[in-house]
């Protein structure tokens, strides 16, 4: 069933990262717009892949709750959001690897979407490195697997971000797949913003983006292509330091719309839901997560 890792690299322009400043299933349980958008990116990958025509599979989405310490709350919220959508949803716990039936590489590289949750950015990167998962994620990106994430799970893809892992906000280097820096929750946690602006002005972080909760940036290759939002009024800005002065550009996000009825993102019907429950049980992932 699961296609083995191909190892084939995609051209830079087809590598996709979607970085959210806040929102998604953990923060907006009744607003699925950002998560549905993530799924459309997965559908796009499936359709573009060999054999992705008429008999294309549903996108496979893997949630990485590492930054939270793999809390059941995040894992349950993820499954609540994606269980009844057109996708195959699983999570990967680096604290409970006993549950894993395949190697880390197989698990990660057989996905269409990797969705990284929020929490401690410092812990996220340290634990990924301890398992060599950072290298696997970079490989996944090179193979065209969609990388999505919120908060710590968004900042990790950039050269740097602002973390509150130790309490007060401070700059921290990320994996550096994307040039520039990112700061999140600009409206929800305003104390991050001045720390980020000072770091950019002083050259401790490169210029980059500041995102409100509910705003996501779409990158194709290293190019920022779209700014979308799940909430009216949410905003984003691009900030650079030029000759020691901050130059700020306000970005106006496109408000995402609800998915079209009967379209690829419509909710599945009861028969499919039942069949899926059976499949999950047979794969042994129907158990309560975190038991």
């Amino acid at each position, binding site marked *: 069933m699961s296609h083995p890792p191909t190892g084939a690299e995609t051209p830079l322009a087809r590598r996709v990262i979607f970085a959210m400043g806040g929102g998604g299933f953990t923060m907006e349980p009744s607003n699925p717009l950002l998560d549905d958008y993530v799924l459309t990116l997965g559908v796009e990958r499936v359709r573009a892949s060999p054999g992705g025509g008429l008999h294309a599979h549903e996108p496979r989405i893997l949630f990485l709750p590492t930054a939270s*310490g793999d809390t059941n709350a995040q894992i349950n919220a993820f499954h609540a959001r994606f269980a009844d959508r057109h996708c195959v949803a699983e999570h990967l716990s680096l*604290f409970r690897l006993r549950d894993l039936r395949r190697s880390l590489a197989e698990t990660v590289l057989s996905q269409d979407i990797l969705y990284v949750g929020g929490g401690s950015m410092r812990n996220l990167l340290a634990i990924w490195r301890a398992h060599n998962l950072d290298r696997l994620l970079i490989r996944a990106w090179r193979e065209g697997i969609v990388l999505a994430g919120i908060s710590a799970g968004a900042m990790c893809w950039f050269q740097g971000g602002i973390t509150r892992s130790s*309490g007060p906000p401070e700059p921290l280097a990320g994996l550096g797949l994307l040039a520039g820096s990112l700061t999140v929750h600009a409206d929800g946690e305003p104390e991050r913003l001045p720390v980020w602006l000072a770091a950019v002005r002083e050259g401790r972080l490169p210029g980059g983006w500041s995102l409100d909760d509910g705003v996501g940036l779409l990158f194709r290759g290293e190019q920022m292509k779209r700014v979308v939002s799940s909430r009216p009024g949410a905003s984003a800005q691009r900030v650079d330091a030029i000759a020691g002065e901050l130059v700020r550009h306000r970005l106006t996000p496109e408000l995402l719309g609800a998915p079209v009825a009967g379209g690829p993102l419509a909710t599945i019907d009861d028969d499919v839901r039942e069949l899926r429950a059976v499949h999950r049980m047979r794969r042994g992932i129907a158990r309560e997560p975190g038991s």
Partner: protein
Amino acid sequence: MGRQSPPSRTPQIVALGGGGFSMEKSSSVLDDYVLSLTGCERPRVCFLPTASGDADHYIVRFYRRFAPTCDASHVSLFRRDQGTSGVEDDLASHLLAQDLIYVGGGNVVSMLGAWRAYGLDDILRSAWRAGVVLCGPSAGSLCWFAEALSAFHGAPQRVRGLGLLPYSNCVHYDAEPARRHEYHRFVGDGMRPGFAADDGVALHFRGTLLERAVASRPGASAYRVEPAGRAVAEFPLDVTHLATSRSPDTDGASADAAYARRVGVAA
């Protein structure tokens, strides 16, 4: 507060093959044994639940067990942004002021990765040298050794620990039939000689020497495992079965309240 540790305390580590408050329900005599090593009437005990991802239920059970008789605290590396990490001041000074540091079970690779990000590896090394007793089951045992067999993954894996004890270590030795075979294979392939412990056995090291092996249940065993020519030899250790003393009936409600105060949430 302000209590200075006697400078002459010997470094001590108690490595549990499994057991203690997280696994044994009523009688955690192994925990009593570890507490007795501190020589304090009301020891300061800090819990590190990192290997579980700082699981709330684990932290609650720690306070339930230790809060009635100890000055109990915990350090969470995941909740530091929310003011619920237990200890907000300097990690090093807090940990060095303890009589006992209790490391919980879980995934040893994730734990060591997170520790290094906060310099906890160095802090724990200093604490050990200063005579703070270090203990823990499972991942909380493996981490003190130079090398460990981690079987929390799909495939057993050779993991480098903090290296305070210059041996290898294998835990839950009797829990899974394949464990012994795997450990022998790794030692045969060049992993350094070391110690294997069943669930319910505690290996007590003074300095880097094994002082004693004690058990909470009869028949639980521990072994010294080392290469012997082309084969691997396994020598059973003398294991003292600790008499079951009923652990004090702890007041769950008041321990929960103590925990709630610690983490700053409404009880």
